[in-house]
């Protein structure tokens, strides 16, 4: 395997909660000990629900704000602790696209100014070269520069605005784009257009994506590998072929059961059988396995021992004492200590 483009190890991000008097009342464990790698040109889909810490993880990778501890290496360069100018320089290889395109585009600027801004910030080329580059970028994302260049964000539809945000992210030729729910606010047909655009850019420009979404079906469409996150921790990582066919973590099973099938005759497993209750607070996450309070398979050991990520199939990892479909092999006797490290 070649050198990873992005290497995240033991990343921890926590926020202190204070009451009105400024007295510390708790710590939000937003991201707890997350590690993964991303190869050049690879897409890692990161799935989780609100409060799972997936957006915090993305921001911690970008050092905005920097994580509490852990390491983020981009092309071998450690980003954690990097000083301002060096960090800015390193970040040009890593760009971000957000869920709400209108929130990330200054409403007073024109489209060509928005796309040119990163080029100016990094002093790329002459004025004329930058103009040519902006036209190229707009063409690349499927917007006619002569029609859209002079418009302001409010004169764009949601899909067009997201294309502008993508053009802006591409301006500096990044190797990695972190997409945080890039199509969640778009209508179904526009969503398909933007997803196809992201796919085309990936093959044409050799981009790597960290693709964050809450929809497992959507993530499968774009990913080489999929990681499932729950309450600040990765619970399962694997290639789509095996993760979707043979999910190992009970949480992944619940997520899969929640997807409404566009086929009315498809059998449906009631979600109530796969998950119960509500997401616990990240201020006081459950002991042991964080999913145990909602898990239909939980046993005593899940409350006392935190399951570690282990390899259960080819390239397929899960952090669970009782992985689904592995009852015979992995389930320890109740009450005994788990010696399940492989």
């Amino acid at each position: 395997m070649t050198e990873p483009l992005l290497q995240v190890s033991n990343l921890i991000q926590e926020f202190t909660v204070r009451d009105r008097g400024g007295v510390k009342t708790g710590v939000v464990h937003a991201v707890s000990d997350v590690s993964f790698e991303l190869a050049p040109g690879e897409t890692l889909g990161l799935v989780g629900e609100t409060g799972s810490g997936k957006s915090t993880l993305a921001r911690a990778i970008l050092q905005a704000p920097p994580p509490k501890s852990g390491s983020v290496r981009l092309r071998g360069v450690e980003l954690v602790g990097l000083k301002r100018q060096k960090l800015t320089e390193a970040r040009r290889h890593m760009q971000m696209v957000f869920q709400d395109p209108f929130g990330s585009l200054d409403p007073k600027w024109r489209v060509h100014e928005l796309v040119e801004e990163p080029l100016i910030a990094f002093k790329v080329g002459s004025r004329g070269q930058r103009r040519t580059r902006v036209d190229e970028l707009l063409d690349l994302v499927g917007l006619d520069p002569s029609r859209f260049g002079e418009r302001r964000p409010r004169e764009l539809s949601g899909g067009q605005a997201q294309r502008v945000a993508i053009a802006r992210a591409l301006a500096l030729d990044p190797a990695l784009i972190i997409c945080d729910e890039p199509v969640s606010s778009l209508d179904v047909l526009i969503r398909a257009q933007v997803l196809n655009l992201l796919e085309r850019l990936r093959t044409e420009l050799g981009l790597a994506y960290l693709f964050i979404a809450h929809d497992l079906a959507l993530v499968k469409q774009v990913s080489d590998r999929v990681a499932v996150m729950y309450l600040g921790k990765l619970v399962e990582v694997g290639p789509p072929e095996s993760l979707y066919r043979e999910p190992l973590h009970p949480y992944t099973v619940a997520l899969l059961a929640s997807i409404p099938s566009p086929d009315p005759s498809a059998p449906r497993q009631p979600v109530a059988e796969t998950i119960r209750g509500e997401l616990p607070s990240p201020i006081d996450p459950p002991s042991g396995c964080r999913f145990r309070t909602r898990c239909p398979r939980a046993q005593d050991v899940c409350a006392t021992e935190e399951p570690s990520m282990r390899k259960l199939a080819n390239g397929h990892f899960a952090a669970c004492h009782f992985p689904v479909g592995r009852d015979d092999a992995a389930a320890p006797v109740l009450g005994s200590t788990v010696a399940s490290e492989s």
Partner: protein
Amino acid sequence: MSANGLSPTGSEVQPLGDGGGVAPTGAPLLEIANLRVDFHQAGRLVRAVDGLTYAVPSARTVGLIGESGCGKTVSSRAIMGLLPASAHVTGSIRFEGQELVDLPERHMRSVRGGQIAMVFQDPSRSLNPTLRIGPQITEAIRLHTDLPKAAAHDRAVELMELVRLPAAHQRFRHYPHQLSGGMRQRVMIAIALAAEPKLLIADEATTALDVTTQAQIMELLRDLQQRLGMALIMISHDLGLAASFADEVLVMYAGRGVEHAPTRKLFEHVRMPYTRALLDAIPRLENAPHSPLAAVPGQPPDLAHEQVGCPFSPRCPNVTDKCREQAPPFKEQEPDHQWACWHPCGLDERV
């Protein structure tokens, strides 16, 4: 509307209506005919709903599906009489035979919230953040029934149990901010059910929620609909959700109905190319990674411009000159299956 069938029998929850599993009989509960809603904005006429016709049988779920701006929300707000004064509503909305269009506000008030209730997308904006949730439910009960205060309190707890809010007694005194989004939506449903409505309109009621919560709330709504014998209009942009939970589906585009059929029939024999496009654009678990999605180009039309021909024609793969000149009629072209298209999928040998 009286509060019959209410007995403060502790935790036992009584069904509110005539019991579950009511088969559709006779005249539909709600009949909408040739509904038009116009807005005058900055001197322009925007036709948000353009001649919509459909019916909701009692105790059935109708899925109203379409993209933003297709008129699904505006048409359902017209049912509730919740449109701003700038809206001009024509056509007919008959609920149990009573005409709701141009019904005076004081009569409308007994229908709205009483016989027809609505649940909105964003529960945090529909609840009063300064009041505990219990009193907010009790208020709705007292407004629509003549229950005394103590009985209304018991009834509120019953409703909270009905929508499966855990620990209803303790939750009664919680403020909205102390609840998760899914629990707040359960409170909204409890309030909507306070007056035992015959029709519940759920407007993107699960869109703002997480996937697992969305599935739980949809399962709850379907269960309540069956147990209480309520009719449900489910407004969504998600055909997948409709496939799983609706009895029949009406697809809307540019303010018009474009395809309407019982769910199974619709999904087995999609006729309107727009419905086909919506279905093909949904990422499916069966798809291989990196496979392209079938995406139709373009965007929905600007409703401020008068539309000539079929509104979908600029984006349609089956388009011909006829489509650009003449709007196809929306009518029953196969038993129980209406659509508006000159070149329907699977029937037109030319395509």
